[in-house]
């Protein structure tokens, strides 16, 4: 299926689960409600119309300062701030982040026999950052979800072993969140350099 057909098929199949959908630069993207993720994912894997047997990627995006972070112009100490403003015109613009929620968990699926791709997005609020785990469907989701927990702090229900994977256990905080400063080091031994 190509991207428009994919969006239509998914929206017709799960009318209650799909919040919005769009197709940007040829990538079919569907935004789901959080409760329906596990059911939709299982159907997408097993139904012969979709047959998404590959979970290609599982990641998250922190939309807390989307479009708001201005950077200094000309040189880093100029004091003149430039806010993000795209210059390349876009005939078919992107609808933007999916809602007021801070995090969006993004799943990339691929079907090997039918050769089509789909992106699922699940918006998650900061206060209740919890999503169903997909480890019962795809084995690869195990480590991917551990990484999202490590980097963003989003929990996954029914995950067999949700501990940090890239950082050490004594690390406090979640580095890829926008409010974590990039060079705040927490050394295990040695000075804080």
């Amino acid at each position, binding site marked *: 299926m190509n991207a428009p057909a994919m969006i239509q098929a998914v929206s017709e199949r799960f009318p209650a689960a799909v919040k919005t959908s769009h197709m940007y630069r040829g*990538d079919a993207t569907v935004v789901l409600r959080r409760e329906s993720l596990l059911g939709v994912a299982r159907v997408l894997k097993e139904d012969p119309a979709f047959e998404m*047997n590959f979970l290609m990627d599982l990641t998250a995006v922190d939309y807390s300062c989307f479009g708001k972070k201005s950077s200094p*112009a*000309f040189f880093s100490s100029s004091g003149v701030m430039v806010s*993000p403003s*795209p210059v*390349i015109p876009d005939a078919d613009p*992107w609808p933007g982040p999916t809602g007021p929620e801070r995090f969006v968990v993004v799943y990339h699926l691929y079907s090997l026999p039918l050769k089509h791709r789909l992106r699922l997005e699940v918006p998650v609020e900061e206060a209740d950052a919890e999503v169903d785990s997909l480890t019962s469907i*795809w084995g*690869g989701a195990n480590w991917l979800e551990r990484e999202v927990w490590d980097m963003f702090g989003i929990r996954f229900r029914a995950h067999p072993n949700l501990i940090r994977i890239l950082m050490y256990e004594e690390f406090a905080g979640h580095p890829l969140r926008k409010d974590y400063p990039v060079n705040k080091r927490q050394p295990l031994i040695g000075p804080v350099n």
Partner: protein
Amino acid sequence: MDQPQTQKATPGPIETREMLLNVGPAHPAMHGIIRIVTKLDGEQVVDADVEIGYLHRGFEKMSETVDYNGVMPYTDRLNYVSPLINNMGYCMAVEKLLGVAVPERCHYIRVILSEISRIADHLTCVGASAMELGAFTVFLYMIKAREFLWELVEMVTGARLTVSYGRVGGVKGDLPEGFAERCRNALRETRRVLAESDALLTRNRIFVDRMSGTGRITPENAISYGITGPFLRSTGVAYDVRKDCPYAVYDQLQFDVPVGTRGDNYDRYLVRMEEMEQSMGIIEQGLRDLPPGPVAVNPETGQPIPAAEMVDQGKAGNIAAIADACATTDPTLEGSAKPRQPNIAVGEKRVFLPSKEDTYGNIEGLMQHFKLVMYGHGIRPPKGEVYFPVEGANGELGFYIVSDGGSKPYRVRVRPPCFFIMSALHKILVGEMAADVIPTFGSVNMIGGELDR
């Protein structure tokens, strides 16, 4: 009463305990720092726990602090044995976001260099696995072949390993003269090395005994864990991003995708050796089909004009002559006395730097350069998100980029192919002998920069 001791009493069941053997993080295997805590029952591995993250360098966080071209050096250091594939994958992802199309010559250059990188990666992987099994000679031969390829890469990009050759919208510079000849020589030498290594390893009793039957994975498990690349192809599933979701000019090139049958270490070795041969075929086709880049010249005289004359032409109001022409500059500046070939980059002014001849030669070039280099300016793509997969040496290397319209990317996520293989490693190692851990881990081709980013 003493009885003559004719034989010892038969021992009861022997009490055994499982042993925890810690492989790593600092261990002799060549492929990078990782910790595998294996639980051994005698020689057999009963359980394995893989711990990663010892080389986490914050690629994704650093990409949010620099502009789009500034991410290029960080992508080099992801899969550092095949850096050009990472560069090209990232560039193509940003170009998809921008909606620009690069010229065909640029595609061919990217394909040729990606395949050279892929050969270098497979040489390193096979050489290092052979060395871990004791075949030190093969390692030396393969690194010798890798040196020939690195000399080629240095000729084109200026660096051997961390090249940063790609730019959003094109590549940094054109192929130098004499590249095709040097490339063919290097490929001939590489073929000779591969023939020698093949003769030393493929039917070698020790190598075959240690590698075949070990490290097996079924196709269903491999797909469930999201494994792609030579690891998946050795199980019999023919998935190659270059064939199934072709990009650049791969749909116009003829090559085969080698597929194994049993999914063990020996099949992976054979798949990698054959893939090197296929990559060399792709490079030769690319060199043959490389479209020439026409040189932009002064339409009146048919010659490239020097920079000073370009300024004079502009003052005289002769804009038509200079808009399409290029200037040759002093040999001390980059670009030097060679006439510039413009077909290495997209013509979009808001994306790619002008050549030095234009930057120093006319005001439009200077302004274009300024708008792309100064902070706060630079490439500012429209708001959006894209995912672009390329075939890395280990599997599908995908870049997921979210842009908020600013000069710095909002989120860059790289889908690392060996992450998925490592996540399945604990399952592969159960039931193997302790000595099989090393060849299995070697055939995973785990690259720390890509695994931990």
